[in-house]
């Protein structure tokens, strides 16, 4: 519980922290206005960690903990891949790997009216945006962006969907493009949809391409950039040898 005697805030940044670590002491800091992101909480003067992960800092005063899990906690504004579980009069019930089912209103589509309600069967894969995610209530989804346009949201047809961790999803969505997608994109042609809930969908013209892309992505979470490129080279060589 004691801080190091020379406690400077940078001592914990970019390091792995576990729940219970006191990472900042407000009484020692000059700038006392902080923005705390996920995974941190304030106990009077001490900022302690709630979630295991890496502590990150961004100027001027934002701190948060980044971690990678298989569970997804819904937040408003996230784009996720959901699977339709049931359909009611006003909503589709969609599973987004969260604590409860999410509601997708039947009118939440571009140009959606009561007369052209889409008919999604049970098991349909959808790329949707989380509109509201309040604790204790079921999340609300939408197939339009904030301005009402369709913007790539909707049903994902064909292709292959696999599940992995939330950290991998964030890595795939980071900019500049992450090395594995960059290397794959130079040699193969495919399309992907990445959900922040740990689900990734891949589609290509031939099944072997889909398999290579999916395997490359699944193996890439713990590899560094260079290792990712080497792995992709090997996989593509095997692909070319076999065709």
């Amino acid at each position: 519980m004691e801080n190091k005697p020379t406690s400077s805030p940078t001592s914990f940044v970019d390091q792995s922290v576990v729940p219970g670590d006191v990472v900042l002491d407000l009484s020692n800091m000059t700038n006392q206005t902080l923005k705390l992101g996920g995974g941190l909480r304030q106990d009077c003067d001490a900022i302690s960690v709630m979630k295991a992960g890496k502590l990150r800092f961004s100027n001027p005063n934002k701190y948060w903990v980044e971690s990678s899990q298989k569970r997804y906690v819904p937040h408003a504004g996230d784009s996720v891949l959901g699977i339709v579980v049931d359909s009611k009069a006003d909503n589709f019930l969609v599973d987004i790997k969260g604590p409860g089912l999410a509601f997708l209103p039947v009118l939440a589509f571009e140009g959606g009216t009561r007369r052209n309600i889409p008919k999604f069967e049970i098991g349909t894969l959808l790329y949707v945006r989380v509109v509201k995610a309040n604790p204790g209530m079921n999340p609300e989804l939408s197939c339009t962006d904030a301005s009402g346009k369709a913007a790539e949201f909707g049903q994902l047809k064909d292709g292959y969907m696999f599940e992995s961790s939330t950290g991998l999803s964030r890595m795939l969505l980071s900019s500049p493009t992450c090395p594995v997608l960059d290397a794959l994109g130079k040699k193969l042609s495919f399309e992907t949809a990445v959900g922040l809930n740990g689900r990734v969908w891949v589609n290509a013209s031939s099944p072997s391409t889909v398999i290579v892309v999916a395997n490359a992505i699944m193996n890439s979470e713990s590899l560094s950039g260079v290792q990712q490129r080497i792995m992709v080279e090997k996989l593509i060589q095997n692909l070319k040898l076999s065709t």
Partner: protein
Amino acid sequence: MEEAAAAEVVVVVTPGEVLGKASQVRAGRGAYVAPHNNLVYASLTGFRRTLSPPPNSPDQRPTVEVTGHKAHGAVPEPGSVVIARVTRVTARMASADIMCVGPKSVREKFTGSIRQQDVRATEIDKVDMHLSFRPGDIIRAVVLSLGDARAYYLSTAKNELGVVSVESTAGETMVPISWTEMQCPLTGQIEQRKVAKVGG
């Protein structure tokens, strides 16, 4: 089984027992008149009491009523003010367990639901239920009607109705700072609720 002769003899009756003819007695609490044969039947289990009619009313029939052999807990009636604890909040309504009716606490569980249009009196279609109630809040509401089979309909559409007591995530009772906001005294976090105007 047949009607007693004098007013003071108390007899235990059960639902369905005949208490008299509608032409001779009036149905009070716990009794009702069956329209097809104009007989007064008991609807509750309890003691049968007969009340003499007020002297200058045109209808001089005595009133027969059935009161419980143990004291009833309070039952919500339309128009009564209740204290309830919110159990569930969805986009359109909030469910609450009614704990007190007026000053008395209830003996058995009653469920109330507050619909989106009954949360406040102004701008009722722009109400965000999550910014009005959360599960665990204690609210003061008025009963609108008996509602449906599952729950009474409650309303908080007045200044003195709404959230009365809330516990923050830090465990402290929050302090109201306006009619839409409450603040935790320990951490200073502000949360939005439909706050009841208490006092003066």
